[in-house]
C-alpha cells in the first residue's frame, strides 16, 4: 500500500470570531488539536461548529482570531493552498469524472505524473475497498460507496489534517456504523489528525478522542467522551451528551433541594436555582421488602 502513515498536523484556533452583519455565528473559539488526534465538533445546528470548520478549511475568513497549523499562521491562506483533506456531507464527487479520476483530482492539482497518479488513486481506493469500481461514474454508486470514494479522494495526497463535515449524515444507520468503524481503522493506521463535525452524539462517542461541544457560537466544554459524560461542565453538555434525568430545585448552603424532597450535596455550586442531573444507569431500583430485624 502506498498510502503511508504520516504524522498528523497540529491545529490551533485562537480567539476565532465570525460575524455576519451584526450577528456572531462564532464567538471567541479557542481550541488546540494535537497531532494524530480525532477531535469532534459537536453541537446542534446553528451552534457555530460548521462555521468553525469552514474557517479551518479556508472557505470563511474569520472576523477575528487566527488559525495556526503546525506553527504556520494560515488564517488568510486560500483553501487550495492549505493542503487539507476534506469530506462533505453530500459526498461532492465530481459527476463528470470517473471514480478513479475523482481520486486522482488532488494529485493532478499537485502535478503528480500520470502513472504515479493512477497507482496512488487505485491504492487509496483499495483502502476503502472500492478499487473494483474505479471506472464507474459517481452516479452509479450507492451513497455509502460515494462517501468512501470521497474519503479516498481526501486521503490520497496524504494530507496531515482531515476535515469531515457531517460525512455520514445522509446515510442510514447500519451503513453509518460500518463507515464509522472503517474511519476509526483508517485514522489509527494513518496517524492523521481528524476534525469531525456532527450533531449526532452517538457517532461522537464511538469515534472521538476528544469532543468540543458547541452551543450558540461558543465552546461549552472540551474533553474526552468520558469526561463529558461523567463531569459535564454545563447543563447544556449534560443534556446533549447521553441520556439523563433532570431534577429542578435549588441549592442552599452547599445542599441541593429538589422536587419530591430530593436532597443532594452540592459543593461549590452557588446558591440559587439549580438542576440535578441523574444518569439513568446510575439509578438502581430494588424491591421494597420487609425490614429485616438485624438491620435494626
Amino acid at each position, binding site marked *: 500500500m502506498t498510502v503511508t502513515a504520516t504524522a498528523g498536523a497540529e491545529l490551533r484556533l485562537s480567539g476565532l470570531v465570525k460575524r455576519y452583519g451584526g450577528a456572531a455565528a462564532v464567538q471567541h473559539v479557542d481550541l488546540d488539536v494535537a497531532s494524530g488526534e480525532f477531535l469532534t465538533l459537536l453541537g446542534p445546528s446553528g451552534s457555530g461548529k460548521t462555521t468553525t470548520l469552514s474557517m479551518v*478549511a*479556508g*472557505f470563511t475568513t474569520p472576523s477575528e482570531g487566527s488559525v495556526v497549523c503546525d506553527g504556520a499562521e494560515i488564517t488568510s491562506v*486560500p*483553501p*487550495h493552498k*492549505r*493542503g*487539507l*483533506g*476534506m469530506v*462533505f456531507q*453530500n459526498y*461532492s464527487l*465530481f*459527476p*463528470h469524472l470517473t471514480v478513479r479520476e475523482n481520486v486522482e*483530482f*488532488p494529485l*493532478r*492539482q*499537485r502535478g503528480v505524473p500520470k502513472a504515479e497518479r493512477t497507482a496512488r488513486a487505485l491504492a487509496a481506493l483499495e483502502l476503502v475497498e472500492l478499487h473494483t469500481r474505479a*471506472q*464507474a*461514474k459517481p452516479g*452509479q454508486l450507492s451513497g455509502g460507496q460515494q462517501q468512501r470514494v470521497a474519503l479516498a*479522494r*481526501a486521503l490520497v*495526497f496524504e494530507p496531515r489534517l482531515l*476535515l469531515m463535515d457531517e460525512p455520514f449524515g445522509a446515510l442510514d444507520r447500519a451503513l453509518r456504523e460500518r463507515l464509522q468503524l472503517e474511519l476509526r481503522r483508517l485514522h489509527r493506521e494513518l496517524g492523521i489528525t481528524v476534525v469531525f463535525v456532527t450533531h449526532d452524539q452517538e457517532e461522537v462517542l464511538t469515534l472521538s478522542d476528544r469532543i468540543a461541544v458547541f452551543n450558540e457560537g461558543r465552546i461549552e466544554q472540551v474533553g474526552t467522551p468520558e469526561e463529558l459524560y461523567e463531569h459535564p461542565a454545563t447543563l447544556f453538555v449534560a443534556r446533549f451528551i447521553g441520556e439523563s434525568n433532570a431534577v429542578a430545585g435549588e441549592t442552599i448552603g452547599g445542599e441541593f433541594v429538589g422536587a419530591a424532597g430530593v436532597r443532594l450535596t452540592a459543593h461549590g455550586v452557588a446558591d440559587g436555582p439549580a438542576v440535578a442531573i441523574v444518569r439513568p444507569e446510575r439509578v438502581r431500583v430494588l424491591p421494597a421488602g420487609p425490614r429485616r430485624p438485624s438491620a435494626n
Partner: protein
Amino acid sequence: MNEPTRIRLPLRIWAAVAALLLVAPTLVVIPLSFSDKRSFAFPIEGWSLQWYEKFFTDQRWLSSLGTSLWIALVVAVIATALGTLAALGLRGLRARLAATAQITMMLPILVPGIVAAIAIFGMYLRWGLSGSPLGLVLAHLALALPFVLIPVGTALRGLDETLVRAAAVLGAGPVARFVQVQLPILLPGIVTGFIFAFVTSLDEVVVAYFLQSPTVRTLPVQMYSSVTVETDPSIAAASTLLLVLSTLIILIPRLVQVVRERRAAKQLGDVA
C-alpha cells in the same frame, strides 16, 4: 400493461398530428426545391436539381450564405463567452441586483423584433454603424445573448456550490476550478447556448434587413428580397439548405448524447 397502452396510442396520434401541423408547412419547401418549373406550383410534375445549381453558381446567393455563416459564427462565439460569464457573474450578485441585470439582458427577446430593429437602425444611423458587419454582429449579439444566458443559468443552478469548494480544498486554484470542474459540468448548457445563438443569428431577418448593405446581406435578407421581387425557386433551395443546416446543428448535442450513452451502456455491459 393494457391501460398504459390504451392511453399511449391516442397520445401518440395526437403528438404526431401536432408535430405534422407544426412541421408540414416548412417541409413543403423541400419538394418545391426539386421542381423543374419556374413556379411554386403543386403537384410537382418534373424533378430537377437546377435550383440548387443556380444557388451554388449565383454569386448573390453564395455570398449571402457566406455572410450569414460567418456572422452567425462570430455572434455565437462571442455570445457564448459573454453569456457564460454573465450567468456566472449573476450568481455572485445580490438577489435584487441579479434580477434587474437578468431582466435587462433578457429584454431583447421580450421587445418585438420590429421595434428593436427600428430602434437599432435609428441609433446606428447616428453612430455610422448601419450597413457595417460590426453593426450587424453587435445587434445579433444582443438578440442572441438571452439564448445563452438561459441554458447556462439553468446548468449553473444544477451545479452544487460545494463541488467548487471541494475542488478548492483538494488543491485546485481558481482557474483549475473553472476549467476542470465548473466548465465540464456547465458544458451541455454552454453548447446549447452556442447552438441557439448561432441559429438565432442565422435565422434573423428583421434587424438584418434594416442593417443591410450591398456588402452585408445575410441569406434570410437575400431570400426575402428574392421572394418580393421575383418568384425564383432558388429560394426553395435556399430554404431547404437553411432548414437542413439548422436542424443538423440543433440535433448535434442530442446525437452526441446518444453516442455517449451507448458507449457508457457498453462499458457497463463489459464490466458486468
